[in-house]
């Protein structure tokens, strides 16, 4: 950041959400610029990290080796004052499943100081073979969607890329929505819920496929909860949206930035220098404080 003036910083921040804390309490969203030293977590709370779109195997103008920037993000994770309880990777681990890429991702993330890394697929992880390699590796051949509880928060990982190939949109499918309904059935309305999936669950820019066609059916099951945080990847930039008690966040990529929705001929790696790209790459720390149910979302970049 020291290369930028204040105006440049603010413009950059507006664009990628850098250094902004989003706090959702009772469905009301507020934001503030992070203080220089973010407070350490106190007892009875936890944090986790979201990373996304590592695209290992990608080489381009903005990034000659996506494995290197992923490694640098792991360095940032390991430098957090409080180690995250777990890391969630929201898909596009690889750039089209190049040989050995899943192994490289796993190897790099072994170095992250955290108890567990959870993965859901992006379309780049499944379009070549219909998900065989990814699901064999991370879902024991099952469908890949998942849920778990951690310190009173219910986490749901959804898979919305397996129909991408045929229908060209993110889609969950009836079977997964039925599973979600059952999964949420026993939860009280006051349970904080975190949902993560690759393609945004809100219509960011449908013409570019930045939408999940049947997301509304899933969201209808979530509206009764007092606090829902939806974490997505796919579009390689941090955007936020609030709908009732549901807060949506898309994440930066660890590999290369993509243009703002609808800007330019299509989605794809921005053709900019590595130096220009770094402030647009990064990770996200999500903090949960028990008792007050706010989830603070903190994006930080490689710049």
């Amino acid at each position: 950041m020291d290369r930028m003036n204040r105006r440049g910083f603010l413009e950059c921040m507006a664009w990628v959400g850098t250094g902004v804390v989003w706090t959702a309490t009772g469905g009301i969203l507020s934001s503030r610029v992070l203080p220089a030293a973010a407070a350490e977590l106190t007892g009875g709370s936890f944090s986790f990290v979201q990373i996304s779109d590592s695209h290992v195997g990608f080489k381009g103008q903005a990034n000659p080796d996506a494995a290197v920037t992923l490694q640098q993000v792991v360095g940032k994770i390991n430098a957090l004052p409080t180690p995250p309880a777990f890391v969630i990777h929201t898909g596009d681990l690889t750039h089209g499943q190049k040989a050995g890429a899943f192994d490289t991702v796993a190897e790099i993330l072994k170095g992250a100081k955290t108890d567990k890394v959870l993965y859901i697929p992006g379309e780049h992880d499944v379009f070549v073979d219909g998900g065989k390699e990814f699901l064999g590796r991370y879902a024991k051949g099952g469908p890949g969607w998942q849920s778990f509880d951690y310190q009173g928060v219910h986490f749901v990982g959804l898979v919305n890329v397996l129909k991408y190939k045929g229908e060209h949109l993110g889609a969950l499918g009836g079977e997964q929505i039925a599973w979600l309904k059952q999964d949420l059935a026993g939860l009280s309305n006051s349970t904080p819920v975190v949902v993560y999936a690759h393609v945004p669950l809100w219509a960011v820019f449908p013409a570019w496929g930045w939408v999940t066609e049947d997301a509304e059916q899933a969201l209808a099951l979530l509206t009764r909860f007092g606090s829902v945080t939806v974490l997505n990847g796919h579009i390689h930039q941090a955007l936020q949206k609030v709908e009732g008690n549901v807060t949506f966040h898309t994440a930066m990529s660890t590999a290369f930035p993509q243009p703002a929705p609808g800007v330019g001929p299509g989605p794809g790696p921005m053709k900019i220098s590595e130096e220009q790209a770094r402030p647009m790459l990064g990770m996200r720390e999500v903090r949960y404080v028990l008792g007050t149910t706010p989830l603070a979302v903190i994006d930080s970049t490689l710049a």
Partner: protein
Amino acid sequence: MDEIRRLPARAWGPTRTPPSRPLFPALVATGVALSLVLGVGAAGRALPPASVDIQDSKYVPQALTVAPGTTVRWINRDEETHTVTSSAGLFGSAGLDLGEAYSYTFTAPGVYPYTCDLHAFMQGTIVVK
């Protein structure tokens, strides 16, 4: 035919040949056999190949008319991965990175729409007549 050759980025050579991942091996095998038989024009002359560039998330030209027996070659000029995928499931490339190409020989007259598996807004058509 199944072998995927990874080319260095920015190596946009016109002589590179391509990865193709058969959607339906039997169909592709049939296509290969047909192209061996029909790869030359009715008069026995080899037909000049035709090419389509994939650039700025578009197929250029978007519509291309060729004679039966013509091999069409698509070259990806974008850093973004694209595919060439027949809407009717007749032919299909693997993911093409920058500089990679895919070829298919069209034998029967007809209209062949295709798209990119990763970008539905990309649409192209090959007309064989």
